[in-house]
C-alpha cells in the first residue's frame, strides 16, 4: 500500500504514524469510539471496552505529538451513577475544555472539567422536546450550542451548555433531512452541520439551524468512486457515486474537505465540499511508540513477529468510528477494533513519492 495518496486539486496525504496500543488501563485504548482534540496536542478519548472487562470503559487523556504519544490521565468509569457511563459513544469539548460525553444507554450527557473531575449530567429519556433516546454524536459550536444526535428519535437536538433545549431538526425516514439511527456529527468552519446518517448509509449537511443542504453517498461496499454526491435532486448518472456501509464519524477540515469513517467498509473516505471523491484510507499502521515498548518487554513476541511474512492484517483499519482533522492538517482516525489511532498528514504542497 502506497503511503502517499494523490488526490485532486493538489491535495495529497501521507501516512504519518500510529499511536496507542490495546490496554484496559493506563497506556492504551480499548475500543476507542470517539475523541476530541484539545489544546497542546491533547486528545480526550472515549474507550468503550465491554461488559466482562468494564474496567476498560473510561475516558483517557493523551498528548499525541509528532510520532509519539504520552499517557496523561484517565477518568469516568462503567456504571449508571453520576460520572459514570454504560455505553459511552461520543465526546466534545467546550471552549473552556470541559468534556461532554454521551451515553447511548443512560441517555445522558455527562460533563467533566478538563482535568476529568465530574461536574454534572443532563438528559432525560423520552421523545419529547429536549428528551433523548440514545444520544450518539455530539459537537459544540463557537456560540456554545451543543448539537446532540438523538439517534433513536432520528433527529438532531440543540442545547445550551447546561442542557436547556434550544431546537431540533430531522425525523425518521430516507428523504432529505430525514434520518435512520444517525451517529456522528461535526461542524464546518461556517457552522454548517454534518451528520453521519448511519443506517441510511449517507452523510447529510444542514445549516446551523437545521435547513437541509446536501446529501453525500449511498449504500454500498464499493470504494472506487469519483463523485459522492446527490444534491438537490441532481444525479450524476454516468459517474459512480460514493458508497458507504454504515458511516459512523464525520468531520470537515478548514478547506471544506469532508472525512467520513466508513465503518463496515473498514476505511475513511475523503470528499471535497462538492462531494467529489479525493481518496480513501484503508490503513497503514506501523508499530506505535507504546507498541514498541510493549513488544520490547516480551521477547517471545519479537521472535513471533520475525516469522510473520504478511503484516496486512495489522496495518488495516478495522471498523473505525471517528475521524478528526487538527489545525496542522493531521487526520486522526480512531481505529476502534485495533485500539489505536492512525494518523495521516494532509500536505500543504504536493509531496513527491
Amino acid at each position: 500500500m502506497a503511503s502517499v495518496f494523490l488526490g485532486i486539486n493538489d491535495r495529497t496525504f501521507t501516512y504519518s504514524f500510529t499511536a496507542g496500543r490495546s490496554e484496559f488501563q493506563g497506556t492504551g485504548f480499548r475500543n476507542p469510539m470517539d475523541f476530541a482534540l484539545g489544546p497542546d496536542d491533547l486528545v480526550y478519548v472515549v474507550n468503550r471496552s465491554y461488559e466482562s472487562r468494564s474496567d476498560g470503559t473510561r475516558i483517557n487523556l493523551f498528548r499525541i505529538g509528532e510520532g509519539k504519544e504520552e499517557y496523561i490521565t484517565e477518568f469516568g468509569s462503567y456504571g449508571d451513577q453520576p460520572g459514570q457511563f454504560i455505553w459511552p459513544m461520543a465526546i466534545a469539548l467546550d471552549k473552556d475544555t470541559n468534556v461532554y460525553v454521551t451515553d447511548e444507554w443512560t441517555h445522558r450527557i455527562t460533563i467533566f472539567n478538563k482535568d476529568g473531575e465530574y461536574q454534572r449530567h443532563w438528559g432525560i429519556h423520552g421523545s419529547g422536546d429536549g428528551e433523548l433516546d440514545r444520544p450518539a454524536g455530539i459537537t459544540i459550536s463557537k456560540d456554545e450550542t451543543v448539537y446532540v444526535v438523538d439517534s433513536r428519535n432520528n433527529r438532531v437536538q440543540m442545547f445550551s451548555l447546561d442542557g436547556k433545549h434550544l431546537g431540533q431538526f430531522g425525523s425518521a425516514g430516507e428523504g432529505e433531512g430525514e434520518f435512520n439511527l444517525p451517529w456522528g456529527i461535526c461542524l464546518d468552519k461556517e457552522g454548517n452541520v454534518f451528520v453521519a446518517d448511519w443506517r441510511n448509509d449517507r452523510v447529510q449537511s444542514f445549516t446551523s439551524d437545521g435547513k437541509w443542504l446536501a446529501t453525500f453517498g449511498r449504500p454500498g461496499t464499493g470504494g472506487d468512486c469519483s463523485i459522492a454526491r446527490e444534491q438537490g435532486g441532481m444525479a450524476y448518472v454516468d459517474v459512480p457515486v460514493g458508497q458507504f456501509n454504515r458511516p459512523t464519524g464525520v468531520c470537515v477540515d478548514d478547506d471544506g474537505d469532508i472525512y467520513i469513517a466508513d465503518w463496515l467498509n473498514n476505511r475513511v473516505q475523503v470528499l471535497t465540499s462538492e462531494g467529489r471523491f479525493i481518496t480513501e484510507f484503508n490503513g497503514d499502521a506501523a508499530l506505535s511508540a507504546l507498541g514498541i515498548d510493549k513488544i520490547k518487554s516480551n521477547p517471545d513476541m519479537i521472535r513471533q513477529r520475525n516469522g510473520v511474512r504478511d503484516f496486512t492484517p495489522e496495518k488495516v483499519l478495522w471498523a473505525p468510528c471517528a475521524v478528526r482533522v487538527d489545525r496542522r492538517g493531521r487526520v486522526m482516525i480512531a481505529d476502534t477494533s485495533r485500539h489505536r489511532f492512525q494518523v495521516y498528514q494532509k500536505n500543504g504542497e504536493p509531496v513527491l513519492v
Partner: protein
Amino acid sequence: MPDEKIALMAHLLRRAGYGASRDEIEARVAQGYDSVVEELLNPGDDPGIDEDLMYRAYPSYFDKAAIETGQTEWVYRMINNKYQLKEKMALFWHTILCAGDNKVDNARTTAIQIDKFRDMGMGNFKDMLMMLSTDPAMLYYLDNIESHKTAVNENYGRELLELFSIGVGMDNEFNYTEDDVKACARAFTGWNLAPTIPVFPYGRTPFEFRFDPADHDYGEKTFLGETGNWDGGDIVDIICKQPATARFVARKLYDFFVADEPPVPSWRLSAPRDLAAIQALEKAYFDSGYEITAMLRVLFHSDFFKDESVRFAKVKSPADVVIGTMRMVGDHTEPKPGLFFVAMEPKYMGLDLMNPPTVEGWHMGREWINSGSLIDRINFASSMLGNTDLPGVKKIVDRLMGLGDVPTSEQFLNGCLDLVGPLDLAEETRSQLTEHLDAGGALKHGTESERNDFTKRTGEALKMIATTSEFQFG
C-alpha cells in the same frame, strides 16, 4: 388437553430451534407444519439478525479480545437469529467437532469456526469435514500444526476417525485399526497454519490455514483398505462413503433432535435406540450424496420425531434451558447491558460454549444434571419466569386473564402449563401446585389491586413451574 397442533409445533420449534413465544407458535401453526419445516431447512444467507445494531451496541464483538465476548455474541445470536434451525446447527456441530478456546487462545479464530458451522451446518457432510480439516482452530486444537512428514502427530488423524466421522465401531465390530489412524494422520501432514501476528500490541489476529507441501507425506498409504498416495482430501472422500459414517451422522442427528443416545465410544457395542429411524437417516445420507438437509428433512417429517413419546423426553441442554427461557420471557431481544451475565449461564450449567471439556465434547442427556447444575438450572429459569416485568411473562399474564373472571386454581395452573409448553406435570406435582394456589385465595383480576395480585401470583406460579422436574425436559 393441549391442542395437538400447538403441542407438535412447540416440539418442532424447541428441537429445531430454541423454542418460541406462544404468539409465534400460533402463527406457525397457521402456516402449517410442512411449510414451517421447509422454511427452517431453507434459511437465508443473511445473518438472521441486525448485525449492524449488534455491533453498534457491542463494538467489542468485532475483535473478540476474550472468549467471553465470543460466547456472549453467540448467545445473542441464539436468542435472536430468525433462522433458528440454522443457528441450532452451529451448536449441533460444535458439540461434535470439538475445538476449545482454552487451548486455541484466540477467540476470534474459535468464533470463526462456529460461524462456519452456522453457515455450512445444513450443507454437505464432505464439505464440513474438508472445512474442519483446514479450520485453523481445529488444526491448532488437535496439534496438526505439530504433525510433520518426519514426525507425525496423530491427534487430529485419530479424532477425525474416532469422534468426528466414523466412530470407533458399530454392530460389535471395530470400524478402523491403529494402522488406519497412522495413514490418516500421515495424509494430513503439512496441513498447517501461517505464522500469526502476535497479540501485542494491537490484539489478536485470527489464524490462517496454510498447506506446506514440503512437510506433507506424499507416500503411499493404505486407509480403510484402499491404497494410494492419499492426501487429506482423499481421506475425507473415503470416510464419507463408509456405512459407519452414515451411521455416525444419523445417530448424532437422532441424539440431538429426537432422543438421547449413549456417547460415541460405546457405539461399537450399543445398538441404536431406534434402528429403523437410523436406517431411514442413513438412506437419506447416501441418496442425497451426504446432504445434511436431506437427512433433517426425513427426520422432521418422520413419525419417530413427531411421536408424542419423544416430546419432553430429552433432558434440555444448558443452551436449551437458557436460550429457551430467554425466548419465552422475551428478554434480550435487542442489545442491552446484562447480556454477558446471561451468556455465562450455560457455562455454570456445564456447557462452556467454545470450551468443550475434551475433544469428545459434553456428555449429554441426564449427564447435564447433577445437584450443582440442577441448582443453576432451577435458579436461572425460575428467576426469569418469575419476573413479571419481562415482556413474555406479561403476555402470559394477559392471556391468563382471558381465562375467565375468576379461574379455579386448576384452570389457572393448566393455563400456565399450556403457555410454557404445553407442558404436562405428574399428578402429584400438579396437586401440590394446585394446593399451593388454593392456599393463596381466589384468582381475581377485576380491580387494579386484584390485577396486581394476579400478576404477582402468576409470577410465583411460573417460578415454581420452572423448578419442577418436568421443566428440565424439552
